[in-house]
């Protein structure tokens, strides 16, 4: 239809066009739009613009059909997707099979990384699931105490206790009545946890056992989800003589749990309890561990034994209540009951019960930090190790990309789109990841038992959890994607003409990227390595440092039953037995003294408002000798002075803090006992090295009903000594089974956390270095392969093997050195921060870093030079013959 060129055509409405563009299949768009426009102009001429526009809509709508809309059909024959995937799979498997060395490096590296990741993940999961099994969990809160005195702020899980009219009670006793949001209230105190803890003795008929347990209020089983298998959980701890025991304990004494109910059981030879409930053995997921629970009233009313002051109070608040509000209400309630003139100000706070395991340190009187820090650190380590493993894959893939590029070129020429190529590369790496995952699952199954002993856990693979498999699939996809991303996006962007002409070169960016990855990888390895070395040295240091006393060959038993009344006879008899060198006593085990007091201690010339926290300990006359303590001034306790039962000794720190000159002969008092200072002890460690040495005050009391008896055995005669001890104990204290501890072992237990951490980080750092070296090995292999002609020519021209090896290793060593330069300061920062947690630390000497750097360099050199030497020794003829 001819149209005059002068008058520009008025275009049809835009809106329908847009609609069509969106919906119409691209290969049909041209003819459809053409038809529409032509018809429109025809109509404009025939019936005018108005009519034409109206009809235009109808025309457009007539195209809204399945045969026209997008995705329905295409000019091009479209292979079925599954065929494509099958072809990718075949290609990937062929590629893996062809480059065996690279594939092994890839799969091994990735599976090591994934094993590491999964182990840490399982560990973190286990840590986080602690105390998370209570069905009321989100309404359970621990009450912690923040106390301020003398400008010092302290925090802890303890509840203020008062004495009145001969009765001991906590200030929160009737909290439930006073604060209505508090639905349940429980006090919990352990009998066995340090510092005063110990297993307690139970007896039914002839059967005597020592077990570890606790005391709890009557709400206990209503709040916490510890399943009760026999007896009524609601009334189990109501009566003062009631006791709830575990299945294990029930089976120790009775035929079955059901049979235990209503039976009487003798406790510590001082009371008889009635078993009211049997609960299932406490699971490993619980941070509270107990084999029995004694009624709370009994515990508070007890006058003969030391009941622990550390009372853990847990409340369950109403579903609708706000924790902050409840906290305020509790504080209001508490302040009214506190003595206004007390220099120690107390405030209470709430912490979710399930948080107490991970966040149990107190900073400025508030819970902050604790195991959560290790969880976070290891989480980071897990991710880093996985990244290091991914980097291997990326590096090898990009290094080999010159070879792979040809494939890309051919595929592109044959009409493959970029998306397909990306899918192919990602698919390849997902396949590799899948193989690695299979391998790492096998590794995991093999390693888990060892890991459990290392970490002190009972982790099993959650094979039955669909979520675990889902997670694995996710991990596989994520790892595959990350590892395959660079080759996928880089290679698929290459231009086919260039590749096929053979002019393809690595761009500078690609080379720098690869180098950067190596630096990053080794940086992380070095970081982990330095951290590991420092952690294990510090652990070693705290275990082997001289504490100021001799902790070898020391055994101790708790004073119980007749041991106090017949102490003199016991000591006398035992000292004469074979294998025993010396026997003495102390009110607290000397390696972990936890009791600190200030008010009851006074001294000559004490100024007002001075408060010194002392660790008081009452010992026997031979304590200094058995411990091998040094005296810096004055003399030690001696039986020859009748007045020495009222004498005191203090340590150097105490002297400094008390602020007295010429201490010998000055009077000191502790509670109602007053006496003179007869000597000054050289400072020795009374607790773990986490805390500095505290002021110590020592006196002689050989008639205390609590404490321990220490036995120094003759070196190498532990067996005889134990036999002697058993015999004498049976003679003198027949009602109590013998339980003894080795002091050096108990001391080491104070660092159980650090030990586990140190061993774990050893393993992980080793893994990271191994994975990095695998990557380096791969790169070196690749580089040797690529430069084989260069090496051949150099050799023909007379280069020596050593010069070729040097040439070869130089590049890699430069990278490793650079990563050291970057990683060392970062490592220093973190390690230093960790060491701050110890009052006594190793020096962060420069050579620790230097040694780590050299070690890494050496390992890297070893890895690279194997390849370099192989390349340098090869016959140049082989390399140069072809072409």
């Amino acid at each position, binding site marked *: 239809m001819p149209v005059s060129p002068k008058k520009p055509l008025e275009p049809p409405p835009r809106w329908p066009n847009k609609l069509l563009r969106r919906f119409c299949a691209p290969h049909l768009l041209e*003819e459809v739009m053409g*038809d529409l*426009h*032509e018809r429109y102009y025809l109509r404009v001429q025939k019936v005018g613009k108005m009519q034409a526009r109206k009809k235009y809509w*109808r*025309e457009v709508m007539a195209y809204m*059909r399945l*045969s026209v809309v997008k995705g329905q059909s295409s000019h091009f024959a479209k292979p079925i997707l599954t065929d494509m995937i099958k072809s990718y799979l075949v290609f990937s498997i062929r590629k893996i099979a062809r480059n065996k060395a690279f594939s092994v490096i890839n799969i091994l590296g990735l599976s090591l990384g994934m094993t590491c990741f999964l182990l840490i993940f399982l560990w973190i999961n286990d840590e986080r699931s602690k105390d998370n099994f209570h069905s009321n969990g989100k309404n359970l809160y621990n009450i912690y105490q923040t106390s301020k005195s003398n400008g010092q702020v302290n925090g802890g899980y303890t509840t203020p206790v008062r004495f009145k009219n001969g009765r001991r009670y906590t200030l929160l006793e009737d909290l439930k009545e006073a604060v209505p949001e508090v639905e349940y209230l429980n006090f919990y105190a352990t009998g066995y946890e340090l510092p005063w803890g110990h297993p307690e003795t139970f007896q039914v008929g002839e059967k005597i056992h020592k077990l570890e347990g606790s005391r709890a209020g009557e709400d206990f089983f209503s709040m916490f989800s510890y399943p009760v298998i026999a007896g009524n959980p609601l009334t189990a701890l109501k009566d003062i003589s009631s006791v709830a025991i575990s299945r294990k304990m029930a089976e120790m004494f009775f035929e079955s749990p059901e049979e235990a109910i209503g039976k009487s059981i003798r406790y510590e030879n001082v009371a008889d309890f009635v078993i009211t409930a049997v609960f299932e053995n406490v699971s490993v997921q619980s941070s509270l561990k107990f084999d029995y629970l004694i009624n709370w009233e009994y515990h508070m009313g007890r006058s003969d034994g030391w009941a622990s002051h550390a009372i853990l109070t847990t409340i369950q608040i109403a579903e609708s209540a706000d924790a902050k509000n409840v906290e305020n209400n509790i504080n209001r309630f508490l302040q009214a009951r506190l003595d206004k003139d007390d220099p120690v100000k107390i405030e209470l706070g709430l912490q979710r019960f399930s948080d107490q395991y991970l966040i149990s340190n107190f900073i400025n009187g508030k819970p902050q930090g604790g195991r959560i820090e290790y969880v976070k650190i290891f989480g980071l380590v897990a991710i880093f190790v996985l990244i290091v493993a991914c980097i291997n894959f990326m590096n090898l893939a990009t290094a080999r990309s010159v070879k792979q590029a040809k494939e890309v070129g051919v595929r592109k020429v044959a009409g493959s789109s970029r998306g397909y190529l990306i899918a192919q590369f990602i698919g390849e790496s997902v396949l590799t990841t899948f193989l690695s995952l299979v391998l790492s699952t096998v590794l995991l199954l093999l390693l888990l038992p060892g890991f459990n002993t290392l970490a002190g856990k009972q982790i099993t693979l959650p094979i039955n959890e669909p979520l675990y498999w889902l997670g694995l699939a996710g991990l596989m996809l994520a790892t595959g994607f990350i590892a395959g991303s660079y080759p996928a996006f880089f290679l698929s962007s290459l231009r086919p003409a260039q590749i096929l002409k053979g002019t393809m070169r690595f761009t500078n960016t690609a080379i720098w990227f690869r180098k950067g990855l190596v630096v990053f990888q080794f940086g992380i390895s070095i970081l982990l390595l330095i951290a590991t070395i420092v952690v294990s040295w510090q652990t070693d240091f705290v275990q082997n440092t001289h504490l100021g006393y001799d902790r070898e060959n020391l055994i101790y038993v708790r004073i119980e039953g007749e041991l106090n009344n017949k102490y003199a006879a016991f000591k006398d008899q035992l000292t004469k037995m074979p294998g025993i060198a010396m026997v003495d006593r102390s009110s607290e085990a000397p390696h972990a003294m936890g009791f600190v007091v200030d008010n009851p201690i006074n001294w000559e010339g004490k100024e007002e408002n001075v408060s010194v926290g002392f660790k008081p300990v009452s010992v026997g006359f031979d304590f200094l000798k058995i411990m091998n303590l040094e005296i810096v001034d004055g003399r030690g306790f001696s039986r020859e002075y009748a007045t020495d039962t009222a004498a005191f000794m203090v340590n150097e720190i105490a002297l400094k803090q008390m602020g007295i000159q010429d201490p010998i002969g000055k009077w000191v008092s502790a509670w109602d006992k007053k006496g003179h200072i007869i000597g000054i002890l050289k400072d020795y460690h009374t607790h773990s090295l986490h805390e500095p040495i505290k002021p110590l005050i020592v006196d002689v009391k050989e008639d205390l009903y609590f404490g321990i008896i220490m036995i120094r055995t003759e070196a190498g005669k532990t067996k005889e000594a134990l036999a002697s001890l058993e015999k004498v104990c049976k003679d003198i204290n027949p009602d109590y089974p013998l339980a003894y501890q080795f002091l050096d072992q108990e001391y080491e237990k104070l660092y159980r956390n650090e030990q586990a951490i140190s061993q774990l980080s050893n393993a992980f750092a080793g893994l990271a270095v191994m994975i990095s070296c695998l990557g380096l090995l791969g790169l070196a292999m690749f580089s040797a392969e690529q430069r084989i002609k260069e090496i051949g020519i150099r050799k023909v021209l007379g280069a020596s093997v050593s010069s070729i090896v040097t040439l070869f290793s130089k590049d890699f060593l430069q990278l490793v050195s650079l990563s050291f330069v970057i990683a060392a300061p970062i490592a220093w920062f973190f390690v230093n921060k960790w060491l701050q947690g110890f009052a006594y630390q190793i020096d962060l000497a420069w050579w620790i870093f230097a040694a780590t750097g050299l070690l890494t360099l050496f390992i890297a050199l070893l890895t690279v030079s194997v390849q370099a030497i192989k390349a340098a020794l090869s016959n140049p003829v082989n390399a140069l013959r072809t072409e």
Partner: protein
Amino acid sequence: MRRSDLGEFEEVVLLSVAVLTPMAYSVAIAEELEQQTGKTVTTGAVHAALQRLEKKGYVSSEMGEATQERGGRRKRLFKVTVAGSRMLHTVREVRNSLWDRIAPHSLPQININ
């Protein structure tokens, strides 16, 4: 009904292609049909019929040249294939033989002007 059968609309479209060859494309066909039947025929409907005919193998197509009134777009030109031609002939024979067998006066009388 077999897929190769010819619908009524398809038949007229196919005939129009034959009539308009070599310039048979959807706009021309739609215009032609509108003129012949006096009803509105959208290019969309014609397009769909042509697609079906092509699928059945009765027409073949190729892209023609671009024109200004199409906004510089090319048009798709259709030709009747041998199979199409055979089909048209068959249909016509069936109809003719049926017409021939109608006895005189058996159809009601109408005025044809």
